[in-house]
């Protein structure tokens, strides 16, 4: 089996927060306790959408010490391949679902003297759990959270209500911007920066911090990519001795799973490196979309991350 251990859960609460975001609560079907986790962890939610099994990662946002329930928040992506739409439209209270054990690819650096959180939109969710974790141990943190508008500001009221001194909100439609250079300049020695949000925001924070002389190890980021649709292509799997077709709306990883090929994975979002696969032969072009491989590895044509990356061309042979 690939992926983390599985847990059978029941949907126990569904709360629409605003036009785009809905919160889901899960409890164990057997009534037992869920594993504790560390702030920043995600779970992979399995969705049975007709014949298609969708596996999407979502950050856990509940208190890591609360073993009675997990909560996640799902932003509806009308342009996506359907996972978030399935959660919004098809999932009902009482439904039984399967989720994975928590996996953390965005954990706190507990050496930090201060944790500076930068969130964009739905990127707020891992910080909600990290804040709860730090509050329990009197951790030093500060949040700067950019949302599109007041009406789309998920959890703004809760954060401002509980942590008025630590929470700073910025609304795009009111032309409010994080003054990043000054913010970074004013941080005490030993501060670690964490950013979760759209790719543009992550790149902006990483580049600004590097230009300001911050050590690479003090900047932490997480962006789960959703696999993007693309032209269908064929791939030969050398070990399994199979030729499979990857459809327009499925990822290469999903196509392998559909054909019964046991391919390793954890995050399914181009971040963890678990599904890295050797390319044995190809004629054509790769569409690399992951954060895992380095630029020279992308250029080499020797590796692909099948969870998010695609291929256009005549021949692709993989070591699976």
């Amino acid at each position, binding site marked *: 089996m690939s992926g*983390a*251990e599985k847990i059978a859960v029941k949907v126990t609460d569904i709360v629409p927060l605003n036009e785009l975001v809905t919160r889901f609560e899960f409890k164990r079907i057997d009534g037992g306790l869920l*594993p*504790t*986790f*560390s702030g*920043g*962890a995600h779970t992979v939610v399995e969705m049975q959408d007709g014949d298609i099994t969708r596996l999407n990662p979502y950050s856990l946002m509940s208190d*890591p*010490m609360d073993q009675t329930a997990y909560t996640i928040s799902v932003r509806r992506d009308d342009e996506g391949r359907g996972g978030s739409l399935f959660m919004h439209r098809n999932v009902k209270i009482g439904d039984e679902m399967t989720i994975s*054990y*928590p*996996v*953390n690819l965005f*954990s*706190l*650096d*507990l*050496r930090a003297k201060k944790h500076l959180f930068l969130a964009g939109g739905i990127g707020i969710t891992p910080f909600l759990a990290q804040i709860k*974790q730090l509050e*329990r*141990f009197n951790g030093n943190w500060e949040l700067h959270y950019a949302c599109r508008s007041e009406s789309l500001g998920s959890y703004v009221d809760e954060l401002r209500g509980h942590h008025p001194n630590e929470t700073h909100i910025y609304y795009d439609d009111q032309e409010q911007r994080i003054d990043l250079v000054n913010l970074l300049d004013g941080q005490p020695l030993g501060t670690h920066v964490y950013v979760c949000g759209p790719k543009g925001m992550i790149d902006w924070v990483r580049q600004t911090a590097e230009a300001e002389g911050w050590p690479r*190890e003090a900047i932490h980021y997480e962006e789960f990519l959703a696999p993007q649709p693309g032209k269908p292509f064929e791939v030969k799997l050398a070990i399994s001795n199979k030729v499979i077709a990857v459809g327009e709306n499925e990822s290469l990883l999903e196509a392998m799973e559909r054909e019964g090929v046991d391919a390793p994975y*954890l995050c399914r979002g181009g971040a*963890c*490196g*678990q599904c890295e696969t050797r390319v044995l032969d190809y004629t054509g072009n790769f569409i690399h979309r992951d954060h895992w491989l380095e630029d020279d590895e992308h250029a080499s044509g020797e590796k692909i991350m099948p969870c998010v990356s695609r291929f256009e061309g005549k021949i692709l042979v993989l070591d699976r």
Partner: protein
Amino acid sequence: MTIQFNDETFRDDYSFYNSERAIKRFPFPFHEDSYMYSVNMEQHRGGPVDSVYEKRFDVDEHYVSEMKDRALVLADDPLRCQSLPHMTLAGWDLLELIMVSKSEDYPDLFELHRDGNTWRWVNKPMGIDHTFTFLDEATLPYGPMEYITRQAQGDFAVLDQRDDNLWMDAGMVTTQADWSLDFDIGMNFFEWHAPVPLAHEKGIFIRALKFLLNIQQGAPARRLNWTMTVNPLLDTSPENYHKWGIQKTTLTPENLGAKQHLRVELQTFFRLPRSNALVFPIRCYLCSFQDLMTVPKWGRRLHRVIRDLPVELATYKGFIDNRPMMLDYLSQFDDGLPTSPGIWPDLDTEPALQK
């Protein structure tokens, strides 16, 4: 099965012994007639009944005496137990993991009663009955890692995970095969493995690190490692090399069977949930050559492995000078017959020694 705990020592008069049961369940580390490094990892999810693999943390007849020996080592050298300030949460994780595992796996020996954060821990073999507040250090006599590892066999390296690496940032190390926590504290995975020969060239450590970084909650892993120790010493540390190193020169053909021990480490790896750290318990098992030779398959195989081991490894493991004497002894128990695959003794199916 109720365990009869041995009253024994691992120093001075060396009254350590293995019962017949302990010999049969000894984790013999060679699955074939030769040995080379590999990332030989497998899932740690139980194993044959009464094997050292069966429980998450094996408790055996040496438990009480090993914990007495640990207390003696710590009294002499408190730096055998260290925890950098950011590792306290990982210490609580480890305390929880061991208390939950032992109380579930050995309900006749250990009890854990939890009422919110008020926990009562009962350790019957060591006579402990203690109520404390989880996550409140002031309610324990030691830090959480030290508290629980004074009650758990084996060494414990608690590794922080960051920057795609593992960092030796906490540990309890009193039964080690010649490495020092005080020296390695704060090092990363490649730094603390720097002295190991051959394995770097083989890319072993890059693959091993990648595997370890991906160990997830609920899916622990394990492997065996081994070396040689003269006299049943738990504490073969660099700090005390002046005490035990010299003992390697006391071997004679007459005393070798009793004094020379195969030292096997059952290494397990667990992701710690609240801290996202990784704990690496290193459990040491000792067995004298003469006890090992009561299993015909192990006698045949140990001779062949030691005979054919590369010089670099015999040197690194510290027995190159004694190897000829060991081979003279072991060759008496190798009749040239083939051996069955795997590590188990196979006493019912393997033939008795044919010479």
